[in-house]
């Protein structure tokens, strides 16, 4: 009998066991639920973005129409920046739940605008989301353990073990085939909803294949561990307890210890401190002699050094200069913050090699463009855009160019980067 026929024989046989069929149905339901909610969330985010892009343009056009000078134009016109979800984001929401993926910014100090942004669902950042990545990285190992832990112990307890071996000729003709049939079916149950979701989301084939491969490798790892443990001549309950303990160690305890260790080793300032530092600098500037602000500004931007004379009580160039100085004051903290996030992420990437579930979760987020790298890249794109705004407005403000509303049509427009740029 060929291997494929033996696999199908075992599959037909195993699917008639209620517990096995129940677990496989549960796997498919969980996967389908995660894919469905993921697709719904991404559809909601896309709709939000589409609505915001239109509203943003209308709002900006309205504000610019009322502008009387360059300064008020810059002050009153907001620009939407955003990180659109990738075609795989429905499967791994990753940092999209924890980090903001849209901002409306204007020419004022940037740090406050970046760090004051709320995530859409901050409670999810704490609790985590039941997305496909969670199902695959955390729950799928549990399903493997439940399916394989008593592969042999169950037969031993039922008094069939020796008969099965004696009938099959050798254990290699039975247990590996049963285990393979179970794991292959589990993989299909988990991946089928994902494949449907990927087709609906128009996910690139290469990404679909990569995710499928990742899921299979992860299942194989847990299958190997469960198969090895299941070969011990112990009661099924003892084997199950040991495997659940191992699962808990790799999915919860080790990642938690790693996270705490990394956070203690690499300290980063709080976003609130950055906002506070910047805002205090901006607020204080109102009370400072204007030349103090303009000198600090000129020191960083020598190209405008000759245009820093302020003669009137209020001038837009002074106003925007102290906004920039506010950013400069918080710059060290902000850089430390971003470098810290990057270092923590790098350390977590290394530490993930001690926990296959964490490694799989990271890999899925990486493929989906929802990881920390993508969040930092988006942060950088917002900063780049803000710099472009300043670069566009500063000549007009510092050279005191006459206001030309028509020129506003040449304002920089935010273009989202491809998530992996």
């Amino acid at each position, binding site marked *: *009998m060929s291997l494929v026929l033996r696999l199908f024989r075992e599959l037909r*046989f195993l699917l008639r066991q209620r517990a096995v069929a129940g677990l496989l149905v549960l796997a498919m339901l969980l996967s389908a639920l995660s894919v469905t909610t993921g697709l719904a969330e991404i559809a909601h985010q896309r709709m939000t973005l589409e609505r915001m892009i239109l509203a943003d343009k209308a709002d900006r056009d309205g504000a610019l129409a009322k502008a009387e000078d360059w300064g008020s134009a810059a002050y009153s016109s907001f620009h939407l920046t955003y990180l659109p979800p990738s075609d795989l984001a429905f499967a791994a929401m990753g940092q999209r739940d924890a980090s903001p993926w849209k901002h409306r910014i204007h020419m004022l100090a940037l740090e406050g605008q970046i760090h004051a942004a709320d995530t859409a669902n901050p409670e999810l950042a704490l609790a985590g989301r039941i997305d496909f990545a969670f199902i695959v990285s955390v729950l799928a190992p549990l399903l493997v353990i439940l399916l394989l832990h008593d592969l042999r112990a169950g037969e031993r307890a039922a008094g*069939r073990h*020796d008969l*099965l071996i004696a*009938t*099959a*000729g050798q254990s290699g003709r039975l247990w590996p085939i049963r285990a393979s049939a179970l794991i292959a079916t589990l993989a299909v149950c988990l991946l089928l909803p994902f494949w449907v979701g990927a087709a609906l989301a128009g996910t690139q084939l290469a990404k679909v294949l990569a995710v499928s491969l990742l899921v299979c490798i992860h299942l194989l790892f847990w299958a190997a561990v469960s198969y090895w443990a299941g070969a011990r001549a112990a009661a099924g309950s003892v084997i199950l307890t040991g495997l659940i303990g191992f699962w808990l160690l790799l999915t919860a305890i080790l990642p938690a210890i790693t996270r705490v260790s990394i956070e203690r080793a690499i300290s980063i300032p709080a976003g609130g401190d950055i906002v506070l530092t910047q805002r205090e600098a901006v607020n204080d500037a109102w009370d400072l002699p204007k030349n103090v602000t303009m000198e600090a500004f000129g020191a960083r931007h020598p190209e405008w050094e000759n245009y820093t004379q302020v003669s009137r009580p209020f001038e837009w160039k002074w106003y925007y200069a102290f906004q920039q100085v506010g950013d400069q004051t918080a710059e060290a903290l902000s850089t430390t913050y971003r470098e810290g996030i990057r270092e923590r992420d790098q350390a977590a990437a290394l530490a993930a090699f001690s926990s296959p579930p964490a490694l799989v979760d990271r890999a899925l987020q990486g493929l989906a463009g929802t990881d920390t790298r993508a969040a930092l890249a988006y942060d950088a794109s917002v900063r780049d855009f803000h710099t472009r705004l300043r670069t566009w407005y500063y000549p007009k403000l510092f050279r005191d160019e006459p206001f030309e509303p028509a020129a506003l049509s040449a304002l920089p427009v935010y273009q989202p980067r491809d998530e992996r740029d």
Partner: protein
Amino acid sequence: MREFALSADRLSVKRGGLLALRDVSFDVRAGEVFALLGGNGAGKSTTLLSFLGLLKPEAGEARVLGRPAHEDVTASRRQIAYLPEAATLYPHLSAEENIAYFLSLAGLRRDKTAISAALERVALQPAARTQRMERYSKGMRQKVAIALALLREAPILLLDEPTSGLDPIAIDDFNALIEDLARSGSTVLMVTHDVYGACQVASRIGLLRAGELVGVFDAPVGGRIDTDAVHAAFAGRTAA
């Protein structure tokens, strides 16, 4: 050597760190019904598992058709149909489905007619054959396991307490079946603690006590082994 279907040659086997069989030697000729008799923990099942290659000898050998069982376990097991004690087949399958599954596991295919004939031979009621085995009595389960062993068409049958849990009529039917199989050339090694049943069907009886073979009883030509003599030896009242 080839004339013996099964041979234990100074066989010693450990189970759970203890010596369960100690220097046991006996041979079972082709077409013979050999019963191994002994109390609990005497080493009866250990002997069977050694012939199946499921236990590795500490010393000596368990040979199947002249070859050490653990040397090529697949080849050895192909020659053997094994009936475990309290044969628990899959309760969620019917008798026919269980048999079809186990035969397929052995790489064998038997049509429905052959399966029905085997179940007929062990006197399992037709109405029960398609029912899930979870509703079967112990005797009915045993009958299905025996039918499976018959369908294997293996030259050697290893039976572990085959009549345990059977009613007297079923035991008589079973004994008749074993005699029939022996007449058709099958070799039967059965282990039991049923002295009477062993004397009914076996041409020879080996008496195991605490892992040692303490005696072998032969049936006289055309007769049966004397139950009283075996019983006395089993109970330790006489030397075996």
